[in-house]
């Protein structure tokens, strides 16, 4: 800052004020009622873009610098301040003497002495850069919102397409399949005297494959339905559910020797229909993959951490090579040769999708030939929320 030796303190204060106004692009002005006189500070002249020879003492002229839309606003605000003492703080467009339109913030205040308005004074500030940036930001935000809306609409439409695709798949693909299966069966029935064993076997393969394709299509459409579902949650007694599902699955003669142990399992809040599917798939896998063992054991137990409840299903079956653990939960991924174990390979994909729909996760570990442990973890926070979600 400039220092002038021997400068008068008043002159100095005035200089400082002018300098800071210039730096801040902030001009001052006042209207003295008694004298009917308008005074501007030098920065106000600069904001208006007029030289020091401009006489601000004509209010209509001064207001005339504002844009056509802004002029009536400032005129009214000033009149009110003068008549009723109301202050104002406005952001308006000012057309400078050089023709350039800039945004200004103009603030006015009335000063009273003995209940009478003696003067109105205020500031005018060049806020063009900030305002332009602000407007651009608002524009960008609006654009962004439009963009989000458009994308949402696109996604919704894609979703509808997928739904109708899934619908078409079940409907339109199944009709020809029914014909393939039904008519190959008819040939076997109606021409059993003409067909030799090989002929019947070949037609049997046609039939079986049609039925298999039917199962695949059903699984696909089921998976797509799960993906679109909003879980309807209630409190579930998990131990009772696991037990119940197991007894539905176990075949009396075949599975009577399975040693089943189900620990006390903590209850959860979840969609009962969907979680039943989870138990169904995991327990039927445990039964399936222990089926060729002489001693069959299935253990169901749980573990609670700070964040989640984890349910484990352990069997002493054939297990899987941990190398392929990542593939297990993929759709139509089978780690066993066709014909070795029944199934389309959609079960674990279904399990994964349902558990993830509940905000949880799935996993599996195994030592090949020694059994496997499958688990699903459900987050605790989704349980405290309780009741229904969505609708």
């Amino acid at each position, binding site marked *: 800052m400039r220092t002038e030796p021997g400068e008068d303190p008043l002159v100095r204060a005035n200089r400082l004020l002018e300098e800071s106004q210039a730096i801040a692009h902030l001009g001052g002005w006042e209207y003295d009622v008694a004298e009917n006189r308008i005074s501007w500070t030098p920065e106000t002249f600069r904001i208006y873009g007029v030289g020091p020879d401009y006489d601000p003492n004509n209010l209509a002229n001064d207001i005339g610098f504002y844009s056509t839309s802004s002029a009536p606003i400032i005129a009214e605000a000033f009149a009110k301040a003068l008549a009723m003492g109301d202050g104002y703080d406005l952001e308006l467009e000012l057309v400078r003497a050089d023709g350039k339109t800039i945004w200004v913030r103009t603030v006015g205040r009335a000063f009273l002495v003995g209940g009478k308005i003696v003067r109105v004074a205020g500031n005018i500030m060049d806020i063009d850069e900030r305002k332009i940036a602000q407007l651009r930001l608002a524009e960008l935000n609006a654009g962004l919102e439009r963009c989000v809306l458009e994308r949402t609409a696109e996604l919704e439409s894609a979703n509808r397409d997928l739904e109708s695709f899934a*619908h078409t798949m*079940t*409907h339109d693909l*199944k*009709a020809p*399949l*029914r*014909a393939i*299966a*039904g*008519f190959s*069966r*008819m040939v076997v029935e109606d021409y059993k005297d003409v067909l030799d064993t090989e002929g019947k076997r070949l037609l049997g393969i046609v039939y079986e494959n*049609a*039925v298999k*394709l*039917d199962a695949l299509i*059903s699984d696909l*459409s*089921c998976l797509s*339905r799960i993906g679109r579902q909003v879980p309807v949650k209630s409190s579930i007694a998990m131990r009772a559910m696991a037990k119940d599902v197991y007894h539905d699955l176990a075949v009396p003669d075949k599975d009577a020797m399975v040693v089943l142990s189900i620990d006390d399992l903590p209850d959860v809040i979840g969609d009962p229909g969907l979680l039943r599917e989870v138990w169904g798939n995991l327990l039927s896998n445990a039964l399936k993959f222990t089926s060729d063992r002489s001693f069959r054991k299935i253990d169901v137990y749980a573990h609670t951490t700070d964040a989640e409840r984890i349910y484990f299903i352990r069997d002493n079956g054939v297990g899987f090579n941990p190398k392929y653990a990542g593939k297990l939960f993929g759709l139509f991924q089978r780690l066993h040769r066709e014909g070795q174990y029944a199934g389309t390979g959609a079960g674990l994909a279904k399990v994964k999708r349902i558990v993830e729909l509940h905000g949880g996760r799935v996993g599996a570990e195994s030592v090949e030939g020694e059994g496997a442990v499958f688990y699903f973890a459900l987050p605790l926070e989704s349980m405290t929320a309780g009741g229904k979600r969505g609708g």
Partner: protein
Amino acid sequence: MTDAKQVDILLVEDNPNDAELAIRALRKNKLANNLVHVKDGEEALDFIFAKGQYAGRNINDRPKLVLLDLKLPKVDGLEVLRAVKSDPRTSLTPIVVLTTSKEENDVIESYKLGANSYIVKPVDFDKFVEAVRELGYYWLLLNEHL
């Protein structure tokens, strides 16, 4: 066939292969003796309400059972269902809906409109024969008493 006074089953099915399979399943269960097969919803309504090409029929000779496919040309199955179930002259006619999958909303919609039951048309033909047998007997026997 339309000359037969008493029609046991009206089969409404546009897909000729599905129709043949259904008739075969009915025949296997000895249920196909008095069967009329119509191929779209409009013809089904003409038959049930004894109009159009079936104007000579008596509307009170109700089929004992209607097997109704939902996906039909012209007038679809749900519209047929609505028309039959909302008219007091025909509303007692048992209607069993034929559907591709039990998970379809169609099934719920059908029940809302007054369908008496449904059969999923399975790819596995033996299951279809079984399903037709159970429902056919049930409704035909029940209808004896109406």
